[in-house]
């Protein structure tokens, strides 16, 4: 087997079945989570499933990261020590945390767990990355609201691993409130039947998926990130992990996306300086769900404030 490039290709998985197919398609690592501790996991993995996922990863020489990145409230706090001890015991490759309570608990009951720091919208500069590095984080997941220049600058100024998202949906809003249920109750309805999207009154062709879970309400971007054409820059800069978010997508889609990025990364690493294959973007566009354009998010967009 050919040695894989140093850059990690990481994806989310919603089930063991998907995990298997994504490893087979070329993912180096997968991110999964228990819906009681993870923010917006693609699917729910209970302890049995996590154990099996870890075993599966071994077959593929891959890695499993467990998202424990919710903003914790009292109830989760009580269950956290046992859960983290379990994750350490079965040998997951890392956990992803945002709330300092997870760090505090891990220090006490699972000091060997490797920690990846992720506070979603608020991981935005290298000083903060280095702060969490001092607290024990081995990797930082950067906010999707950063420019590519900022991402590269963070990488240049930190010793820990940097993970950046290259494909898929991003969460743009998280409320603890049950905004969908509240609205439906106000309307006098029992519940909704199908997936829901929001459309702002002045934005005709932009559809923002919205859903509720145990942590409240989440709104998702109206387009999917797609950085396939900018992989050379990311690879050259040594970004350690490139993430494909599979949330709200069918397994077939995620499988095809992982396979394509695998192929692209391998080719670009084998032939540094080679041009981008113009078909890559086209292949991704051809499988894109209707109404969800591909875009580059904030990587090339200036924001004002």
């Amino acid at each position, binding site marked *: 087997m050919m040695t894989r490039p140093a850059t990690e290709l990481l994806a989310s998985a919603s089930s063991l079945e998907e995990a298997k197919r994504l490893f087979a398609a070329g993912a180096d690592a997968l991110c999964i989570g228990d819906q009681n501790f993870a923010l917006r996991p693609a699917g729910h993995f209970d302890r049995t499933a996590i154990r099996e996922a870890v075993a599966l990863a071994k077959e593929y020489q891959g890695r499993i990261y467990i998202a424990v990145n919710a*903003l914790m409230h*009292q109830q989760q706090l009580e269950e956290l020590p046992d859960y983290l001890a379990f994750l350490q015991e079965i040998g997951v490759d890392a956990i992803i945390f945002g709330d*300092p*309570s997870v760090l505090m608990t891990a220090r006490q009951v699972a000091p060997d767990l490797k920690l990846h720091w992720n506070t979603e919208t608020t991981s*935005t*500069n290298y000083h903060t990355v280095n*702060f969490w590095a001092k607290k024990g984080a081995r990797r930082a997941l950067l906010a999707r609201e950063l420019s590519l220049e900022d991402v590269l600058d963070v990488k240049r100024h930190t010793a820990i691993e940097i993970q950046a998202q290259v494909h898929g949906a991003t969460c743009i809003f998280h409320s603890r409130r049950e905004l969908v249920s509240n*609205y439906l109750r106000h309307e006098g309805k029992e519940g909704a039947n199908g997936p829901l999207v929001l459309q*702002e009154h002045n934005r005709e062709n932009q559809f923002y998926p919205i859903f509720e879970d145990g942590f409240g309400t989440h709104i998702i971007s109206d387009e999917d990130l797609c950085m396939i054409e900018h992989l050379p820059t990311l690879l050259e800069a040594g970004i350690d992990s490139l993430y494909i978010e599979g949330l709200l997508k069918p397994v077939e889609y995620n499988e095809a996306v992982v396979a394509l990025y695998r192929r692209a990364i391998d080719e670009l690493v084998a032939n540094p300086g080679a041009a981008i294959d113009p078909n890559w973007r086209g292949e991704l566009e051809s499988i894109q769900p209707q109404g969800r354009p591909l875009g580059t998010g904030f990587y090339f967009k200036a924001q004002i*404030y």
Partner: protein
Amino acid sequence: MAIVKKPELLAPAGNLEKLKFAVLYGADAVYIGGQRFGLRSKAGNFTYEDMQEGVAFAHEHGAKVFVAANIIAHNGDFEGMDEYFRTLQEIGIDAVIVADPAIIEVCKSAAPGLEIHLSTQASTTNWQAVQFWAEEGIERVVLAREVSMEEIREIKKRVDVEIEAFIHGAMCISYSGRCVLSNHMTNRDANRGGCAQSCRWKYDLQEEFEDELLVHDETFTMSSKDLCLIENIPDMIEAGVESLKIEGRMKTIHYVATVVGTYRKVIDAYCADPENFVFKEEYMDEMLKAANRPLTKAFFEHKPTEDDQIFGIPPKMRKYEFAALVLDYDEATGLATIEQRSPFAVGQDVEFFGPKRENFAQTVEQLWDADGNEVTTAPHPQQILKIKVQHPVKPYDMMRKGC
């Protein structure tokens, strides 16, 4: 028995004038924004000179001044930051409110004497997270607005660090800091002061069902009613919360004075005699006079329901306006000298209120301009007038009118 350790009443001050009113109406501390690193790029933020004057005024009255520097920074935002915190320390600012750990570090090294409070933007929701920040040397943690009274009690019980909790004002409907709707819809960075409040806009909720897109009839909105915990101040005091915070650096002087004055009365009345404290209807009436939106207790007792949100057209609140400021009062004649703040006329019903005093309502009976001529209207901004008042008033009392 009276409660000796009263909580601090912390009020917003959008500018120097609001700072003075907040302090005079009973705030133990105010928080302001400077020219940089704050989350209200459009608020009347303080220059260093304003800060100096504000600090002098507040300290003279035994009140503290905090500066919010609670952006979530990008790599390029750190230039000049150390200088900024050093200057705040020199000016005598009592504490800074910070959300980003990197900014905490800059502040610690540049201005080691400056007290640091962790902003609500850090979404601190549990006692272990509070403990983490306490161990980092943070003097005070401002809790997330998503915690319940029970969770606040648990935090106070378990961690020895000052706790600040919101008691009043408008709220993000998201976890603070975890919303980038504004970034996505307008390119304005919410976490660096540019929030366009996209959450208050109108949306359609569409449902994909059997390959069709159904649109729900009523407009989908994500607007929360405004927080008001005036009835629950005793719970907060009993839990030992050190600081009770009012939101609203963009709000009017009338709002600040009314809300601060009323919370001051409730805190003082309860602490003076907890056993015999009775919540008066007039406290809530005052809240409604200042309210821009209907009121809610948000997460205080339980997770908010549809009753805690505003759907459709926001209900019209009875609006009151700041009509005039009392400058002076002559006991012999019963005449007050006032400065006009919005037009009013003879025959109009008005109400006088002031720091630590009972309100009284009256009709405007007689008015004179600065030259002593009797007039029937007060149309000019900052016009000086004399008015016949039915009870004694004091400088800084306010005259409000319904509108």
